[in-house]
């Protein structure tokens, strides 16, 4: 009996636990694929290679969520330099200071408990 494949999410989270932001690359499409999956959404091919992002990106869109309880916080879409987009947040600055076009760098946030690590971003210094 052939062994079953790992879930794309598991591979992604395993990388994240090692401090790496992993994404997939579709050789046929010649472009990045995110979120990780079994088939390339551009070609339908199941040939997808795992790659590690350099962790640099640009804020594509941003909002400040105002919860009914607790402090406002940032939610952003980040365009990573390798050509994929992901939801995340920009940390270490006030949420309303996050601007579209800002250059950001990936880091891992450990929420603790049973929760998996999260990819978050901080401003690239000097930009």
């Amino acid at each position, binding site marked *: 009996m052939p062994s079953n494949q790992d879930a794309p*999410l598991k591979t992604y*989270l395993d990388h994240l636990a090692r401090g790496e932001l992993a994404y997939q690359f579709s050789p046929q499409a010649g472009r990045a694929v*995110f*979120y990780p999956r079994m088939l390339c959404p551009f070609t339908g091919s199941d040939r997808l290679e795992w790659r590690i992002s350099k962790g640099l990106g640009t804020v*594509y*869109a*941003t*909002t*400040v*969520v*105002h*919860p009914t309880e607790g402090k*406002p*916080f940032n*939610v*952003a*879409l980040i365009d990573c330099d390798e050509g994929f*987009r*992901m*939801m*995340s*947040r920009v940390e270490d600055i006030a949420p*309303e200071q996050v601007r*579209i*076009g800002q250059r950001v760098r990936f880091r891992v946030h450990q*929420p603790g408990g049973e*929760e*998996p690590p*999260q990819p978050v971003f901080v401003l690239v210094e000097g930009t």
Partner: protein
Amino acid sequence: MDALKRGSAAIVGVAESDLGQVAEGMSVFDLMAQGAKRALDDCGLSLKDVDGLFSATTQSRLSVLGLAEYLGINPAFLGSTIVGGSSFEYHVAHAMGAVALGLCNVALIAYGSTQRSVGRKQASMREVNPYETPFKPFMPSSAYALAASRHMHEFGTTREQLAAVAVAAREWALLNPAAWEKKPLTLEGVLSSRMVSYPFTVRDCCLVTDGGGAIVVTSAEHARSLRKPPAYVLGCGQSVTHANISSMPDLTVTGALAAGKAAYAMAKLGSTEVDVVELYDAFTINTILFLEDLGFCKKGEGGAFVSGGRIGPNGSLPVNTNGGGLSYCHPGMYGLFILIEAVRQLRGEGGARQVKNCEVALAHGNGGVLSSQATVILGTQATL
């Protein structure tokens, strides 16, 4: 794809169920049944005529089965496509196809929600997306807020322009006795309200109400023998660009562009021939995006377009004449209500909010987080 024939089917009966805050203990099927009876009465048909049944709701997994059981009918054709608020625009296209193929003759499309009564969390299943949920976006508001942030960045759209959409909706709502909101709203009132997800205050966001309704679709031939003037289906178009906001290709361009293009092509007309526009305004940015993508103004100019009362009761383009999801009602999936209002406008049943010389109506549904877009263009006998 040109399988559907312009004007071959019509919406002949429309009705809302109770709206707003419904009586304690009401179920989604109670509301669907109430809407069904009223919509069938509207066109002079009865349940025994119904051989096609469509429904969608977040509060029942197998809603069309529950509805068939409740109504005591065994329809030959069932449809339960669920693509969020745009489901009912899909149902119209599917009903039209089923009628053309002879799979059914009279299709009833029903909706019900008790989300205000039971709470939004009870009304829809919580879904976890491991790539979005950890960041705690307040969904769906934050997804639309992200789209608004991008529109503001690229085109200089302002919060005041977004607020103008809410003000216009409120002005229309004040002319609609069925509307939830009864008090005037100003730009300042929108801007100074409680912030939800920047740039949206609670007044940039749709209402959370109960409600339901039904519409009846049949062949054009059958339609002509019924009680009310038919609203002929001239064009339909659908487009899906994504499901989750982080996968939307361009946050400033929606699938309404493709959906509208298909609907206009089928209807053999363009945006300048549309007399009344009913858009799915879950958030103020929606109206701006859809006016652009459906060709009522150029991309990026939507903010300026909606300003100065242009889309309000005294403006040059009547948009969301019932008061919209922002001020009339928004029971979870609002798409059925824009069809109801479009038909009423074509019939001249709009009362104080009636648009003059209304021959062509465009109804545009939105589902998910700008994910699914579906356009239905309706016309009077004169447009055939």
